[in-house]
Each structure stands twice: as structure tokens, then as C-alpha cells.
């Protein structure tokens, strides 16, 4: 999905390293939501298969409560986002859309920052809309945790750089 710098189209190069806007981040978030749903579906299938193997004669499809589904969904989303941001700074949706989450030093955020950002994004997803209002394309999570979501079509993470309008390194 990503490419070396020499293979990035010339028309996309000026945007590399800049903060992404709301549409790109919403598409990436939607893809991540699909991933979480797939994870939940997989977990449900695994649960059902385990029940069937445990007692085939009395098998019936598990019917989890709505609260359990919501809690499981939140936990799965938090775990998924935390691991992805901490490891590479990008989730599957970010990778498809050529985005990357960076910390204040321009690198992948730390574990605490990733976990806090994941929890906030899971509980307050509407905070993403602040990206459109913000002059610097920052969501509420970015403002609270001093992170940024930038265009980065390359495979390797970018090094920190002080931007013209960012003042300092991604804050």
C-alpha cells in the first residue's frame, strides 16, 4: 500500500508530512471500524465453535447481550488501535489512506500515548470532527495528546521535522 519516496507520484509529494484533513481520516477510521467488526465476528465464530466442540448435543448459537457486544467492541477497538499506533503509527485504515500517527517528536507515539489516544478515540469518536474546525487539522485527541495524523505514503516512518506552520515538531 505504501511506496518508497521515489515511487510516490509527483502530485502527491507536496502533501507528504502535512496534517491530513477530515475526509481522509474519516475514511481511515471507517476502515478501522470494519476491521474491528471483522475481529468481533471472528471472535464470535471462535466462541460459537468452542461451544459446539464443548457440547455438540446441546449446541445453540451464543446470544451475547448488547452491553457485552459494546464492551467487547470497545475493548477490541482499543487494543487494535493501541497496538497498531505503537508499533508502526498506522492502522490498516491509515495504511490504505497513506496516513500515519506521529507523536510530538515525529515518531510513532509511545505506549501510554497510544493507549490513551485509542481509549479517547473509541469513547469519543465524534472528536474526529474537530479536525475540520481546527486550523491545523487536529482532532480533540490530537489536541489532548499532542499527536498528529499526517500524509505519509512511504513505508518507513518519517523523521521529526519542524514544520512551517506547526511551530515545533508535531505537538
Amino acid at each position, binding site marked *: 500500500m505504501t511506496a518508497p519516496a521515489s515511487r510516490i507520484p509527483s502530485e502527491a509529494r507536496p502533501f507528504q*508530512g502535512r496534517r491530513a484533513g477530515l475526509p481522509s481520516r474519516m475514511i481511515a477510521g471507517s476502515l478501522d471500524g470494519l476491521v474491528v467488526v471483522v475481529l468481533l465476528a471472528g471472535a464470535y465464530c471462535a466462541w460459537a465453535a468452542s461451544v459446539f466442540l464443548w457440547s455438540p448435543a446441546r449446541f445453540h448459537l451464543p446470544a451475547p447481550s448488547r452491553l457485552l457486544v459494546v464492551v467487547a467492541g470497545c475493548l477490541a477497538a482499543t487494543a487494535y488501535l493501541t497496538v497498531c499506533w505503537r508499533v508502526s503509527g498506522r492502522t490498516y485504515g491509515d495504511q490504505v489512506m497513506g496516513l500515519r500517527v506521529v507523536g510530538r517528536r515525529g515518531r510513532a507515539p509511545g505506549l501510554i500515548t497510544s493507549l490513551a489516544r485509542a481509549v479517547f478515540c473509541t469513547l469519543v469518536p465524534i472528536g474526529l470532527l474537530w479536525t475540520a474546525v481546527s486550523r491545523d487539522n487536529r482532532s480533540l485527541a490530537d489536541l489532548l495528546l499532542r499527536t498528529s495524523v499526517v500524509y505519509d505514503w512511504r513505508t518507513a516512518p518519517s523523521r521529526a521535522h519542524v514544520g512551517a506552520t506547526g511551530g515545533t515538531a508535531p505537538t
Partner: protein
Amino acid sequence: MSTSSLPTEPVAVLDSAADVVVAAGRRAEQNGAAGRSAEENGAAGPGPDEEPPGDGRRDPAVAVLWRVVRLVLEAAAGSASAVDGALSGGRPTRSAAVDLMIGGGAVAGEVIGRVADRLTVAGRSIGAGVSRLPLIEGRLGRPRALSLLAERGRRERAAATADLERLIEALVPAVTSAVLDRLDLTALVRDRVALDLLVARVDIDAVAARLDVDAVARRIDLDAIVDRLDLVSLTNRAIDGIDLPEIIRESTGSISGGMVRGVRMQSVHADQAVNGLVSRLFRRQPPDPEADTTVVGPPATAWREMPS
């Protein structure tokens, strides 16, 4: 050959006789020439192999004629010797009879030459005396009989030349063909011709430039070649040499990569459109698209200068 060593073989006897005759003839020629040279405050004597000298008034045609006769006799002698050697299977030997003929011919030629010289001198003297007579001086031209004789001689020479040419035209192909049939030209060329030197001097590039490759290709029976090929094994080897799954992966990846790049660029443009719309709603100054708002990685100018 010395006369003191007496030969016993018949051929050797004939050789000795021929040598004696030839030597006698040459001695007579030399004596005569010496006498004439002394009379004319003579010049140096000729060598042993030179033509018998004349007396200065002798017609050169006689000497030339004798040269020709001697050449023919020598050629005939050499040919006869070669034929005799080839037929007998031994080494060619020189025939004493031929030497005798040459010696006799030399003596006869000398005698004839001298008689002709005397007659020529006498004829010239008589002709000169007659031409100086008062009534005939200036009126006596070349005799008509001599002119007719010279004309006849020219015609005979022309006819002889034509006959000789026809003879050569008839004989040369037949002789050449017979000779070539008896020669192993391949072995002859292989043993006696420096093929490497010849090939080294050949301009192969020029030959190749003149070669009509298309014409050569048209003469090739491709169907026959293809029929002799095991296309199945060749195809299998080609497929084995090609990483077909990798090609499929790359092609699929390039297609999906193109789609992803399109979606990304569309989203980037959508981001800019949303930012502009929000700026107009909140009455902000619209963002400058040329401003470098890079926060991570190389600045926009470096991206623009990066080679594609």
C-alpha cells in the same frame, strides 16, 4: 664430355656424338666470328650459350629463326623425355637423338645462314651496282615479285595466328578439364594454400553488410524447424524460468496500487476542499496551498526536488 672417357652404353655414345657435333659447330661459328671480327677491328666474342655471331651484315631474321628452331627442338626434347619417363615409370632421361638433331640443326643453320648471308651480300652488291647505272638510277623500285612474296608471307602469318588461336581455344578447355579431373584440388588447396592468411584479409564486416539477411531468412523452412522442436518441454522450461506467481502478484499489486493511489489523491483533494469550505464558513483566511505546512519528514521543497 671428354673424349678420353669412352662411354660404353649406346645412349651415352649418342650423347657423346651429339656433344662432339655441337662443339664442332660452335667452334666453327666462333672461328668464323673471330675471323670476321678481326677483319672489322672486331668486338668481344660471345659467350658459349649465346647465339652464333654474325658478320654484321647478316640478316637478324636468320638468328631469330635459329633461336625459334632451337627453342622448338628443346621443347620437343623435353616433352619427349617427360613422356618417355612417364610411360616407362622411371626418371625422364635426355635423348641423345634430340641432341644430335639440335647439333645438326645448329650446323645446318649456320651453313644456311652463311650461304644466305653471302647471297644477301651479293644480291645487295648487285642491286646497288645496277641501281647506280646512269639509265636506271632512281627508277628501280622494289621488285614486284618481292612485294607479292612479302604479302603472301603476311597472309600466311595471319592464317597461322588464327589457326593457333583456334587450336588454343579447342585445346585449353579440354586440357584444363583433363588436368583438373586428375588433380585433387581440395587436397591441393589444403596443402599449398595459406587459408588463414587469406581469411585474415577478408573483410567479414563488409561481407555481412552485403548479406541480405531477409532473403536468407525467407529461405529457411521454419515449419520444419518447429516440427523438430519439443515445444512442450520448451514451454515447461520457460515457465520454470519465469516466476509466474511473482508476476501475477506484481501485476495485481500494481492494479490495486493504482486504485489506492487514486483514492488517496481524491481524499487529499477532499481534505483541501473541506478546509476551504470551513474557512469560508468561519470567515477565515483560506489556507495557502503553496505554504509549507509540513510537520514530519522533508519539507515540501525537498519533495519537489526529489527525482522521480
